[in-house]
């Protein structure tokens, strides 16, 4: 059966319209606005690059670098913690796997706002960490650097986005054909060698998807750095919110948002490339 090209067009129309209205149009608007200026809280159409040159100022540059550095660290930590969990779940656990999977997904049912607040309670000077450390006598003064530091932001973001790494890796490892590992062992590979030569390369698509799903929201995160990082750990999401909501610098805000998007896009394309395994259909 051959489907004519013309018959597909009406079927695609709703999707195209949706995409155009809620995605392409706003971005195009932001792109245009990012070259305008704001005077007296009013957008003034013009064409200037000042919004972009402003980004090169040390203040904003350091925020951009910090944002991508934190997102990268969060992604790497999520991968290091998440991969073994996904592996154990997919390759070792048999009867309890649905139960454990549910436990992993369960936190997603609560708001990430709540989860961020929870970390404040855990990391604060009178929080669980300090209570424990003082209890066993490691310190007698509460540790102050737990909260309102990069450490707090990173640990919370890893916790919040970890399920997004575990699930795609689990899906890939669950589908991995046992016979490939048997063949590897039959040909003389130790379990460790089999892991490095067969399991890990074949889980690359899942790892790449997982990294993508962690990196993107981590780079754009706003609530967690606001609550746990405080004013010293400013990330780009907070700055964008300030520009739109506090100082009404829509033009500069648009430039910031587009810069964040472009940065994420470059990382995403890189990750997708890494996730492509030659020979896999």
């Amino acid at each position, binding site marked *: 059966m051959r489907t004519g090209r013309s018959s597909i067009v009406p079927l695609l129309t709703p999707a195209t319209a949706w995409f155009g209205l809620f995605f392409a149009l706003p971005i195009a608007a932001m792109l245009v606005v990012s070259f305008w200026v704001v005077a007296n809280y009013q957008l003034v159409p013009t064409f200037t690059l000042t919004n972009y040159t402003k980004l090169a100022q040390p203040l904003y540059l350091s925020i951009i670098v910090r944002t991508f550095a934190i997102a990268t660290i969060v992604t790497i930590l999520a991968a290091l913690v998440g991969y073994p969990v996904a592996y154990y779940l997919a390759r070792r656990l048999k009867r309890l796997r649905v139960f454990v999977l549910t436990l992993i997904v369960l936190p997603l049912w609560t708001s990430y706002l709540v989860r961020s607040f929870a970390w404040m309670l855990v990391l604060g000077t009178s929080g669980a960490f300090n209570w424990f450390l003082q209890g066993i006598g490691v310190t007698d003064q509460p540790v102050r650097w737990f909260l309102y530091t990069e450490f707090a932001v990173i640990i919370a973001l890893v916790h919040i986005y970890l399920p997004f790494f575990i699930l795609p890796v689990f899906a890939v490892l669950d589908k991995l*054909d046992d*016979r*490939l590992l*048997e*063949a*590897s*062992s*039959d*040909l*003389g*590979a130790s379990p460790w*060698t089999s892991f490095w*030569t*067969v399991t890990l*390369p*074949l889980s690359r698509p899942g790892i790449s998807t997982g990294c993508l799903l962690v990196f993107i929201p981590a780079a754009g995160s706003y609530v967690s750095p606001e609550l746990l990082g405080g004013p010293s750990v400013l990330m780009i999401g907070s700055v964008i919110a300030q520009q739109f909501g506090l100082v009404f610098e829509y033009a500069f805000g648009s430039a910031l948002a587009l810069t964040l998007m472009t940065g994420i896009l470059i990382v995403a394309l890189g990750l997708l490339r890494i996730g492509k*395994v*030659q*020979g*896999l*259909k």
Partner: protein
Amino acid sequence: MTILAGKIEPMGTMTAEHSLIEIDRVRKSFGAHTAIDNVSLALGEGHFVTLLGPSGCGKTTLLRMIGGLETPNSGSIRIAGTPVESFSPIDRPTRMVFQSYALFPHMTVEKNVAYGLQRRRIPDAEIKAKVAAQLDVVGLSEKAKSYPSELSGGQQQRVALARALVTKPRVLLLDEPLAALDLKLRQRMQAELKSLQRSAAITFVYVTHDQHEALGLSDRVVVMEKGRVAQRGTPAEIYHRPANRYVAEFVGDISILDGTVRTIEDGGARIETPAGMFVASGPTVRSGDKVHAIIRPESVRVAVASGDGANTLRATVESATFRGADMLVEFRGPADVRIQTSISSTAPEAAAIIPGHTITLELPATALWLIPAERNSNASESSP
């Protein structure tokens, strides 16, 4: 009355002196399911041995135990005289070819074939030369840089063979390697496998549920049933001299005459059946034994003239099915005895095969084979 089962000696016992693989009282169960029930078996060096049976008979489990992918619950497996249960696969002289090939999808053909050599700390240059030579043997030199997903089923099969053979195993274990191929390709690969086995002079242990494959490829066939060995022997022995009804029916069509042994003569046993007296050959039987006399369709002689010679019966044509090269004809004889024959579709007798006609059939004494009547029908009489 005596117990019938167990009296019949296994045919074609393999000689133990030259056996490469010795399986001794091996048991294996998965939970409550017994996959292998006390199997002892000796497989000869350089033979093409087939483990034949329906799915669930334990043939694959037995193969995997030889290859070290499963561990027996009890019993021992020796290869070339050495017990191998505790050996990891790299120390075993066996290599496995998996049912769906299990090629590494992210590696090129070349890398797949090199995989086993790389695990053996062989210099790169030597690996390269060996891989190239092995790919040449299976005729895939131009595909060295291709990925498995770019190959046809037959080519993937050859890569799987090359990957195993390049490590120079003494025993190649093949788990239904042709099951995924279509008929034409399967037949071609059968011929290739056979010639590969001859030229490489290694022992093949081949698992299949396809009796044609088993009979056509093997030097020895081991027929398995519910985790036990039902019979082992050459393909001809298995086919013409089956030990029991299960084996007889698994490897081909049979017609059965139920009877009782009356006298033992030089030419065979004289048996009394509802369709008359017949002389049949068979293993040790005693007069009075209840037996099945079985015959393969192609062994039945169709004589148009009404003879009244020995081992003949008059039978009516029930149905005839044209199958191209031959015709499958169902006859009904005296006392509702059913006889199936196949005759060449070009034979002169073929013209006489008209449903409803009565014809004389001869069941030659050499082709009429005795097997014990099913045990359950004699169970009540078998008490000491």
